[in-house]
């Protein structure tokens, strides 16, 4: 990635979108909108001092919504370019409120709230489309209860949990347990604030809050003129505080019992090889699940994983050996089954209902955490991209190609590679990318010779 940022032949237009492509092979004009970052790319050093002082938390989609970023942010820590960007939907200044602390903090003077979108026209001879894929939305399979069960996550979410730079710093804590911890922290904060307010009342009226509440309830409270003004507010705050104390004690007990998830289920073919959604095999998910199970076991040697699938497709150099190694040394069990349903169990543990096809028995089994190996789906705005480029989609929404010319789209001079072409793993994407680059060179050199 670093090489892309500093190569003299590469002009990097990040935070930009293609809006039109006129002309023909060898002589296209691309219209690109460079969206306003509200940060001067020439001045920003990427130090991150602005994000430290920004008061506005926003859901971090890089971490699949399991962490928070700020309204001024970089997509991820090692991102290229390192230029930060202000999210116009959440920034206080850009939504018409008072703030601007980032501008005060920035020593480089890079913050520019008046920046606007810039439209550039670029003459190009050929185009390589590498727009990738989207993770299949498992909410479309209601029987897996992805939206209602906290401890059912996608493989991409689990990937972030395993990452040392992720929301759980590589420790696999269940989302429901993390919610408990967050609730505890928030409650402690609000209790401290309430305690201060109560202390003020207590000092002013010379009695402690429980005694005040008791007297109020018994009707024995001597209401002075001063107390009459404070009485209702004091009673309300004291009641909330006492209830909060009880909840906090219960939370502390629950949080103390929290352990990392060590019994993990992986469900394969979520959305793929499924006639309701995508009939094709996404190719990489079996290996992805095995890899995640191996890494989880590396992080915590007590981890036991079960991978539920119709079959494990380990097709690739060294893949079958990897699968066997996972079974032998990382406590991974491969179970031939298609999970029918996930239902809520005790202590937020998801319960899987499936038929074990080797014993022909219907089984209910409880797990700490369930990981869904979601299908590789076409990007959500594939139709829009195809329309802009003037190229055709196949029936699933990937860009259409022919078997004999696998990199060529339906418009001459435009080539496709990676998961924009069809589901594939990283080595295959890289190989296709080199092929598409070679095809693009053929196009521009042919046009150059002809002219």
């Amino acid at each position, binding site marked *: 990635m670093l090489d892309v940022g500093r190569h003299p032949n590469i002009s990097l237009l990040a935070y930009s979108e293609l809006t039109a492509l006129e002309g023909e092979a060898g002589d296209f004009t*691309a219209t690109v909108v460079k969206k306003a970052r509200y940060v001067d790319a020439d001045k920003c050093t990427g130090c991150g001092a602005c994000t430290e002082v920004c008061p506005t938390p926003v859901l971090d989609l890089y971490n699949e919504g399991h962490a928070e970023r700020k309204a001024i942010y970089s997509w991820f820590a090692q991102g290229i370019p390192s230029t930060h960007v202000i999210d116009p939907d959440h920034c206080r200044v850009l939504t018409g409120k008072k703030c601007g602390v980032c501008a005060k903090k920035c020593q480089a003077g890079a913050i520019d709230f008046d920046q606007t979108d810039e439209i550039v026209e670029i003459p190009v001879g050929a185009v390589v489309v590498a727009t990738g894929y989207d993770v299949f939305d498992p909410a479309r399979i209601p029987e897996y209860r992805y939206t209602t069960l906290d401890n059912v996550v996608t493989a991409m979410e689990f990937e972030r949990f395993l990452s040392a730079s992720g929301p759980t710093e590589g420790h696999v804590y269940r989302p429901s347990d993390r919610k408990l911890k967050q609730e505890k922290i928030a409650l402690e904060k609000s209790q401290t604030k309430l305690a201060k307010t109560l202390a003020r009342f207590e000092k002013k009226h010379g009695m402690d809050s429980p005694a005040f509440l008791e007297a109020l309830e018994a009707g024995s409270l001597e209401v002075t003129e001063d107390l009459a003004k404070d009485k209702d507010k004091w009673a309300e705050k004291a009641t909330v505080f006492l209830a909060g104390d009880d909840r906090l004690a219960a939370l502390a007990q629950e949080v103390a019992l929290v352990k990392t998830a060590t019994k993990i289920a992986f469900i394969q073919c979520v959305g793929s090889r499924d006639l309701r959604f995508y009939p094709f095999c996404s190719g990489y998910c079996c290996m992805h699940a095995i890899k995640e199970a191996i890494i989880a076991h590396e992080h915590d040697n007590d981890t036991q994983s079960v991978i539920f699938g119709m079959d494990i497709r380990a097709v690739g150099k060294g893949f079958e050996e990897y699968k066997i190694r996972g079974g032998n040394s990382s406590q991974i069990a491969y179970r031939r089954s298609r999970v029918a349903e996930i239902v809520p169990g005790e202590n937020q543990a998801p319960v899987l209902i499936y038929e074990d096809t080797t014993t022909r028995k219907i089984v209910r089994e409880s797990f700490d955490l369930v990981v869904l190996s979601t299908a590789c789906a076409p990007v959500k705005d594939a139709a829009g991209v195809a329309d802009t480029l003037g190229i055709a989609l196949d029936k699933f929404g990937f860009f259409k190609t022919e078997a004999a010319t696998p990199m060529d789209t339906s418009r001459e001079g435009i080539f496709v590679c990676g998961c924009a072409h069809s589901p594939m793993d990283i080595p295959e994407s*890289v190989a296709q990318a080199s092929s598409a680059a070679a095809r693009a060179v053929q196009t521009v050199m042919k*046009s150059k010779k002809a002219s």
Partner: protein
Amino acid sequence: MTTDILVLGGGIAGIQSTLDLAEMGFKVHLVERLSSIGGKMAQLDKTFPTNDCAI
């Protein structure tokens, strides 16, 4: 008429195409929708079958 090439998307495929073309001496314009390149691969912790770091 130009030999410049546009690459749309800065994930692993787009990055590889871009670097190949740039190394061959062509001027490449890499357009990425998000504020930094890397795509889905940058979200991965490790990659199979070698368990190498993704970034």
